[in-house]
């Protein structure tokens, strides 16, 4: 099965620092790919390169057969790649509904504002925000804002949705709810790239995992196998721990 998204030896350098260093991996349609790595590994930078926020210093990004490496963010969005931000960025003066409708209208190809609003309501129902639809976006709790980002991303009718630390700051119940929604979305055929810190979360929902460390891809494969990989353990917990305890149980 040919890959939907193909990252080919992508490097992103800021001056002398290589935030992403020769990363290569594929994403298949409908799969949930976990993107993990310690802090500062370059995960968000990689997403920024894919979505055109930063240009790649070298390498290629191919989506659905088309080279999107040099494309602008809005074009990439319209092609079917959407992402959420780690630090949630709603439109502050708009309501929850308007925020999601923006996603439907501009990314999701809704015909007009009325259609976009209807599509937005659907996503709000799916993410459990329907009752706060007309509240100002800034009045939401953190968990609700994360779901707002999620709903916005979905409203863009993406083929790949990139979720950047969507569970950070949530309690375990909220995380469970988020995971249920993520599974449902993946079942509908949308690929998901999940950037995550919480290993338990990534284990429970990913089909595959790739691990980034100092910008380099150090492991790739099925979740359990990757988490036992000594290189991965060393990256997270240090060489001493890896030497003493081997892989994660």
């Amino acid at each position, binding site marked *: 099965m040919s890959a939907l998204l193909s990252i080919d030896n992508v490097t992103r350098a800021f001056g002398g620092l290589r935030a992403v260093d020769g990363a290569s991996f594929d994403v298949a349609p409908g799969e949930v790919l976990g993107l993990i790595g310690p802090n500062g590994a370059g995960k968000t930078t990689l997403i920024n390169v894919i979505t055109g926020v930063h240009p790649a210093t070298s390498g290629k990004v191919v989506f659905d057969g088309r080279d999107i490496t040099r494309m602008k963010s809005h074009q990439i969005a319209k092609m079917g790649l959407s*992402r959420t*931000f780690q630090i949630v960025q*709603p439109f502050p*003066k708009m309501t929850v509904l308007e925020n999601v409708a923006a996603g439907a*209208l501009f990314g999701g190809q809704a015909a007009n*504002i009325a259609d976009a609003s209807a599509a937005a309501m659907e996503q709000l129902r799916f993410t459990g925000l329907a009752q706060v639809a007309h509240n100002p976006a800034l009045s939401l709790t953190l968990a609700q804002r994360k779901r707002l980002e999620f709903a916005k991303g979905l409203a863009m009718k993406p083929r790949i949705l990139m979720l950047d630390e969507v569970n950070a700051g949530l309690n375990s119940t909220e995380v469970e709810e988020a995971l249920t929604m993520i599974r449902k979305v993946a079942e509908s055929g949308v690929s998901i790239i999940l950037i995550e810190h919480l290993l338990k979360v990534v284990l429970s929902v990913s089909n595959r995992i790739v691990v980034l460390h100092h910008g380099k891809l150090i492991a790739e494969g099925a979740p359990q196998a990757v988490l036992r990989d000594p290189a991965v353990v060393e990256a997270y917990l240090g060489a001493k721990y890896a030497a003493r305890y081997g892989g994660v149980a």
Partner: protein
Amino acid sequence: MKNWLILVAGTAVLALLPLSGDNYLLRLATIAAMYVVLAQSWNFIGGLAGYPSFATAGFFGLGAYTSAILMSMGVPLLISWAAAGLSAVLLSAFIGGAILHLRGHYFAIASLVTVEVLREVVNTTPDLTGGGMGLNLPIMRMSVAEHAMFFYYSMLALACACMACAIVVHKSKLGFGLRCIQQNEDAANILGINTYFYKTAGFAFSAVFAGIAGAIYASWVHYIEPPDVFDILLSVKPLVMVLLGGLGTIFGPVIGAFMLLALEEVVWRNFLTLHAAALGVVIVALVLFMPNGLLSVTREKFGFRAKKGSPEVKP
């Protein structure tokens, strides 16, 4: 809808003004209409998109000179006026390409400098523009009363067209997109909004009506010179009007225009030599105490909110 009703009713009432026979009032009203055009024009780029443009005077002056030069070559009035609007749009496209990627202060300065450069260009090309000596426009064969009425209705029609355009844009995808850009340009990009295109459109809208207003003004006063039509106050006053009335609203610019004109009349009668300083005091007071304008103050006080249950997106 409510907005269209207000516009039509307002215009109908104002159209009856010449019946009063008061030429001074008519003159004031013509200026009021011009102020509405300038304020609403600025609102497209400054209020909706959030890009603080100081280029309004540049569009106005370019429109004035384009029309004046064309008319001195024999081109009919209405075509000259239309060409003025077109020239302003072309300028906005040209300048916009250079400066719309700048943010905040740099965009503001760049737009301001554009006005200065235009004025100096006109000053130093006397063969075409009359330079510092100014340019005379052909006199129109009309009685004083007819003259006053003709230009009043012209300016009123322009103001009406500008308002109609504003109502359409504010409710449209373009308006929505500009609002997104104003609130979070990075998020807007990621969402699929072609921000460059949208900003250029907003800038063009801010240019076209200002350009035609300049053309009408030139024909009205029969004589223009660079410091007159490229006056930086023509860039600042529309901004102040919109701040007064409410940034990014549809009727805020209208309210602000009338308020500023009223203030100016009061000040002119009482503080002739210090009227610029008095305007300065108004501006300072406005910025310090009412930065969101009158309309938002009344909104907060009287609680205009979207009705619950309606899936409509409210501007």
